């Protein structure tokens, strides 16, 4: 491609982004203002739960003013994009999309009130299992092993958490068992993919099917017959002293159960490990060019085994979260596709832990939004709201984010010469 062509492409891209911003602005005006009366008022409250009240005044404003403000800000971004262009248009896109969501919430809560703290907090809670699934995928795939068995690993983790948590009467035993359960499935993936060089997607599929079968079979045989085996204890929320009393941020981020904190720490930890440690460099080298890594004395097989097993432990943690930090019981197929959404979050986040967390939060937010809106009696069939995050993901991936590139050796078995 010649230089001038590339500049032309960049200019087109810049203009396209500007148009997208205007579309958002217009959408706010066309979708939300017609149904809003001039005297409608929106109330956002910031109520915190469970005796940790931090007094914050409710945000009360005329709905139309809020809508015009959001539409205006989006339009301003569009004008700026056309005139000068943003340096990080993708980030601005996120902000503009945020305006749209805020406008939607303003509209949905007109004449009523919406608890923003509760909403954000529940978004995080719903994002955690997705983020853990994505992290598990990142661990494996950065070293070149495709892991579509995350769903199965999580399911096994959830089952072990319920069974051993109930047997031992301790969340810690449940947590440990869940991680080992996930690790066991990951071990199978590792042996099949690395030792036997089975096609990794085949191996992952086999693990999903096997885990589905085993957990459903065993739960029919034992957990359903003997409910005492399916009554694990749960983690109770811990408010982190000091930071928990910061308005809004405190209740949203720092009043959760241990697995939630663990997830956030894992995101940061895996990010640092991946990009700033020798282990990370080796993993990425093995994922991009195993032969070169091998030549330099890195044990490709060992790196892959370790990473896949670690990924299994993380996925098991995701399963444990579903049981020990939320519903306190195992149900058949309870992961309900979270492993696959985690994979989507991983690709969305470009195989980067922070990006994956961001993508997970979007999915979590949409999930939380949908339950709130059902309460607010918004005149849109709930199914369409439930579709929205998936639709947005498709649009964002297609239009703006562009290609998300997998590690070069992802999915390819390594054979020593």
């Amino acid at each position, binding site marked *: 491609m010649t230089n001038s062509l590339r500049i032309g492409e960049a200019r087109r891209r810049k203009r396209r982004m500007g148009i997208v911003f205007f579309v958002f602005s217009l959408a706010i005006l066309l979708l939300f203002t017609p149904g809003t009366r001039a005297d409608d008022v929106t109330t956002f409250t910031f109520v915190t739960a469970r005796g940790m009240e931090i007094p914050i005044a409710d945000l009360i404003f005329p709905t139309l003013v809020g809508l015009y403000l959001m539409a205006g800000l989006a339009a301003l971004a569009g004008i700026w994009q056309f005139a000068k262009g943003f340096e990080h248009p993708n980030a601005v896109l996120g902000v503009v999309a945020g305006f749209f969501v805020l406008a939607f919430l303003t509209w949905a809560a007109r004449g009523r009130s919406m608890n923003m703290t509760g909403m954000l907090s529940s978004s995080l809670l719903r994002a955690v299992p997705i983020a853990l699934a994505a992290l598990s995928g990142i661990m494996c795939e950065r070293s070149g092993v495709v892991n579509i068995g995350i769903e199965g690993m999580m399911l096994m983790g959830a089952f072990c958490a319920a069974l051993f948590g109930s047997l031992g009467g301790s969340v810690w035993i449940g947590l440990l068992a869940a991680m080992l359960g996930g690790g066991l499935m990951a071990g199978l993936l590792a042996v099949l993919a690395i030792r036997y060089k089975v096609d990794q997607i085949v191996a992952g599929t086999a693990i999903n099917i096997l*885990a589905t079968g085993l957990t459903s079979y065993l739960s029919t045989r034992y957990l359903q017959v003997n409910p005492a085996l399916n009554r694990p204890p749960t983690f109770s929320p811990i408010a982190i002293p000091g930071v928990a009393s910061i308005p809004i941020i405190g209740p949203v981020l720092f009043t959760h159960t241990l697995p939630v904190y663990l997830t956030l720490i894992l995101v940061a930890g895996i990010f640092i490990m991946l990009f700033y440690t020798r282990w990370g460099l080796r993993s990425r080298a093995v994922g991009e060019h195993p032969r070169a890594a091998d030549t330099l004395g890195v044990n490709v097989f060992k790196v892959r085994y370790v990473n896949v097993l670690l990924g299994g432990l993380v996925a098991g943690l995701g399963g444990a979260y579903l049981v020990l930090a939320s519903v306190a019981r195992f149900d058949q197929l309870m992961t309900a596709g979270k492993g696959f959404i985690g994979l989507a979050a991983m690709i969305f986040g470009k195989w980067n832990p922070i990006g994956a967390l961001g993508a997970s939060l979007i999915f979590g937010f949409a999930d939380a939004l949908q339950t709130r809106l059902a309460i607010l009696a918004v005149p849109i069939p709930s199914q369409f709201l439930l579709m929205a995050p998936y639709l947005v993901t498709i649009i964002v991936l*297609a239009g703006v984010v562009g290609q998300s590139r997998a590690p070069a050796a992802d999915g390819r078995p390594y054979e020593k010469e």
Partner: protein
Amino acid sequence: MNKEAHETDARASTEVPSDHDDAASDRNTGTEPTPRALTVHEPKPGCRSRLRTLLVPLLAIVTALIIGALVIVFTDTSVYAAFEEGFLQGIVQALVVIIRAYSAFYVGAFGDPGQILGALLSGDTTRIIRAVYPLTETLRTATPYIFAGLAVAVGFQGGLFNIGAEGQYFIAGLTTVFVGYALTGLPALIHLPLALLAGIVGGALWAAIPGYLKGKTGAHEVINTIMLNYIAFRFAEYMLDVGGPMARGDGRPVSPEIQPSAYLPRLFPGQIQVRLNAGFLLALLVAWGVWWLLFKTTIGYEIRTVGHNPRAAKYAGINVARNYVITMAISGGLAGLAASTDILGVLRFMPNAFHSGYGFDAIALALLGKSHPLGVVLASLLFGALRAGARNMQGIARVPIDITSILQGLIIVFIAAPEIIRLIYRVRQLPKGEEIDLTHGWG
């Protein structure tokens, strides 16, 4: 993909995307070898090695059944109780449990041999049909599996990983059932093909979206098909929900019944409980059609070339982006037929929020069948038998139906990693075949 796995049943069934496809497929299907075939240096397989190629898959199934038996025994309380009485009683009870379970399984999948023999000897058609009823259930269960497996297989051949068979199934279900109930007064000769076509078009259009997006923007089809699955599921839920546009209107979240003129004819109309229908024959026909398309036409050649190496295909003058759309549309159309045959042949309406599970099983089927139509058909028959057998096993021997998934998972593991089987049974390795690679990760 593992080369030994390929070798084991390549001659019997499979085809792989490779440079020698045309030649290889000629050899596989028993047609006269073209001159190109002679350039492939492979000895003509003798009878013994033909048998040997079937040995590993058979041993894989047997091993899975043995492990399944162990799972059944180890989770049976009556066995533990018998072992407390004495070692011998325990062993006997374990054997009793296994035999009871697997005979129920066999009868559920293939029918009771005694009954079949008796019926055959009596010569009474009704009795024969009743006796082979379980077999017809196996074939009926295999029908949507064949379509869904073919869908994923075509995707693999074209270098696309279609996880979206489930979503395509839902959309095709909606279009097919709509044509099925909304059009009235048409002769069956027009109505039935129209309804089938509606399913194909629905699935094809839905699947073409990720194909288009991949070609146009490079957005990954895996993530897009997953997203479209959820969208399709919610859309179907909306359409069929009580009060929804396609709901029956009697307070049940199901579509209206389709017109009799859109019914896929049952193969034994005299026997009301036999639900095996023309959909199965259609599945076999379509499987042949897919084989023909993939290996005998220019479109198929282009699909496989893109699947093998999109960059090379591009330099060879193939429109890769257009090919992605075509491949996905074919794939989606096939997944759509799974829904059409289910609805027109068996259900005759569309229920809401049912989880077909085909999307998942379809991946396994395509992989087991090595993305070759004949392989997919065989794998589907196996899965159909497993599911039909397990239903009976649950009913009679009280073994949870989920044992099927355990068996399926194990069979996939053993067929994909034949070294494990060779290690257990000390089977010698066959001469090495060509390295093949069906899926390329996310690439």
